[in-house]
């Protein structure tokens, strides 16, 4: 099996701890991300998928649990130097290409910010050369370097966001709904670009989105989140063909497909937590049903699923 790049162990992110309005946005999730793969994370709004991404990159300090990047904990006390080291390896692409670029900075300065902070360019000339190179990589050109973000369309801005993330040569990129704000015809352009970059640079992605069809297309494995918990984790094909957790089944049945005939005969499933009917003392955890396919379930459900899917 491939090498683990990132290990997330029992990660918790609670907000307003100790107050009556405490929110358990992420409530104990565990998974690994392997080198060179794309892990998709899906779920409805408010399920904690974005918080998970942000906590992994330490935009939030985790309430509990560990994030190990190549065996080293990302969280915990760190000197500025150590932090910088992590920041170079992990980068993020944000959802809203309008809000995530500073409107007062030129594109060149936005892209080169990371280069400057990490001192990756020795001279002004080298810095600009690097910026031009990055612009070209993401399908823009030299002339764009001196313009401001408002002069670009949504798709082009997202390309600038990608160039900025690539500037420091990261190993791992968290893409938080990178295409949700874009038009259909532009979404495919950005997804193709991300796939091309992955092939060329051997990047690892955590791809967070709610559009399951796009996630299935780009991801090797997919994790499904529901109310702060990871409820199912499986290879993309397998998850689509054999969704085991009732929530995943309901999610899959809800996606409208661009085919009028199937749509006419579709039956939607709804998810009700009552179907589990857990007893108080049952231990819920991620259990492996078929190789690589994990479901959050009780011992009893595990045996039932095992009997159902073992071939």
């Amino acid at each position, binding site marked *: 099996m491939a090498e683990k790049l990132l290990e997330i162990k029992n990660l918790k992110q609670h907000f307003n701890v100790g107050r009556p309005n405490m929110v358990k946005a992420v409530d104990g999730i565990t998974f690994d991300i392997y080198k060179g793969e794309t892990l998709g994370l899906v779920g*409805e709004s408010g399920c904690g998928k974005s918080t998970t991404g942000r906590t992994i990159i330490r935009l939030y300090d985790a309430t509990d649990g560990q994030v190990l990047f190549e065996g080293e904990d990302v969280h915990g006390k760190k000197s500025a130097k150590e932090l910088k080291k992590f920041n170079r390896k992990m980068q993020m692409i944000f959802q809203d290409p309008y809000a995530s670029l500073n409107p007062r900075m030129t594109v060149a300065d936005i892209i080169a910010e990371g280069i400057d902070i990490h001192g990756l360019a020795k001279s002004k000339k080298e810095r600009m050369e690097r910026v031009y190179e990055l612009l070209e990589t993401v399908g823009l050109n030299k002339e764009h370097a001196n313009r401001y973000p408002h002069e670009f369309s949504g*798709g082009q801005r997202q390309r600038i966001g990608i160039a900025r993330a690539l500037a420091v040569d990261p190993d791992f990129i968290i893409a938080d709904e990178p295409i949700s704000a874009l038009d*259909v015809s532009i979404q495919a*352009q950005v997804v193709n670009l991300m796939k091309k970059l992955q092939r060329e640079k051997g990047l690892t992605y955590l791809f967070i989105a709610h559009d399951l069809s796009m996630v*299935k297309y780009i991801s090797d494995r997919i994790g499904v989140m529901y109310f702060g918990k990871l409820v199912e984790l499986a290879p993309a094909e397998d998850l689509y063909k054999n969704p085991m957790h009732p929530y995943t089944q*309901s999610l899959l049945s*809800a996606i409208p497909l*661009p085919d009028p005939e199937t749509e006419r005969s579709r039956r*939607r499933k709804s998810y009700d937590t009552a179907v589990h009917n857990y007893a108080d003392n049952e231990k819920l955890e991620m259990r492996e049903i078929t190789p690589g396919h994990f479901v959050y379930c009780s011992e009893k459900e595990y045996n039932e699923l095992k009997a159902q899917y073992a071939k």
Partner: protein
Amino acid sequence: MEKLLEVKNLEVSFQTYGGTVKAVRGVSFDLHKGETLAIVGESGSGKSVTSQSIMKLIPMPPGRISGGQILLNGEDIVPKTEKQMEKIRGKEISMIFQDPMTSLNPTMRVGNQIMEVLIKHQNMTKTDGKNRAIELLRLVGIPMPEKRVNQYPHEFSGGMRQRAMIAIALAANPKLLIADEPTTALDVTIQAQILELMKDLQNKMDTSIIFITHDLGVVANVADRVAVMYAGQIVEMGTVDEIFYDPRHPYTWGLLASMPSLENDDKAELAAIPGTPPDLTNPPKGDAFAARNQYALAIDFEEEPPMFQISETHFAKTWLLHPDAPQVEPPEAVKRRMRQLSSTFEKPVLVKEGK
């Protein structure tokens, strides 16, 4: 079937500092009673402007309906004054907006927002109005409507707010409901519920719906007919089967091919449409899509294509259907969905007047 709405050669433009933006450039379509027409297209294609013009909601100035007619039950509403429009809005035509949080009044109880319509258009008393509001909330599937009717929008979840919006829109039994991306801001599971609800209510009340969206999955689910818009024009229009199983316009091909399919395991590169939509301050000469179109012919850059008719209900605006045009193969992803439809004419027919 009876025609409820006829839009003829509608043109809408906006005065801006950069010049006149021709947002809608000669759009014609009609809508029958009880039918759902989906309008698809990317942002800036003029789909929202078209629908807002039907309610005359575009700000004038800077906006202007510079040509064409909008016939509601045979009566042109373009020359109507704001006062006259007030009698039509909410009563004959109503609208559901994309973002239920910004389109509901946060300082008014949900019940009062529904009653407002009833008191204005149906001369109901407050008590009757309130009872009807409770009924409507129950109709759109809100639990405990007696309690909910006295709550404020912030006490509702996103899906519930959208249901409340639908209740307001349907309060006066409108003949036409315009839904401008009503489910875009919602999660897929909630989206499925809202779509079911809209179809169910349509059956009960026999309303016609214009459904604006960019999600082709949603279109396949709700629409009877589909109009594909690009750069302020309808480039293809047909029944939902014709658009999904026998698309003829290269832009429609592009839209269908750029979506990954959930069913097949194909990991081949998505067929993205290159480039970006044209600037409508200076619409390009010829076919507006030509610059992004890999099937563009020399004539596309010279002359705007006319509308061709492929069947009784299917129209496409592309030179590729001209008898002299070369035979082209649509992209692989589109070919897979193509099927022979019985209603298709033997040969595409040129439509004389703009249809």
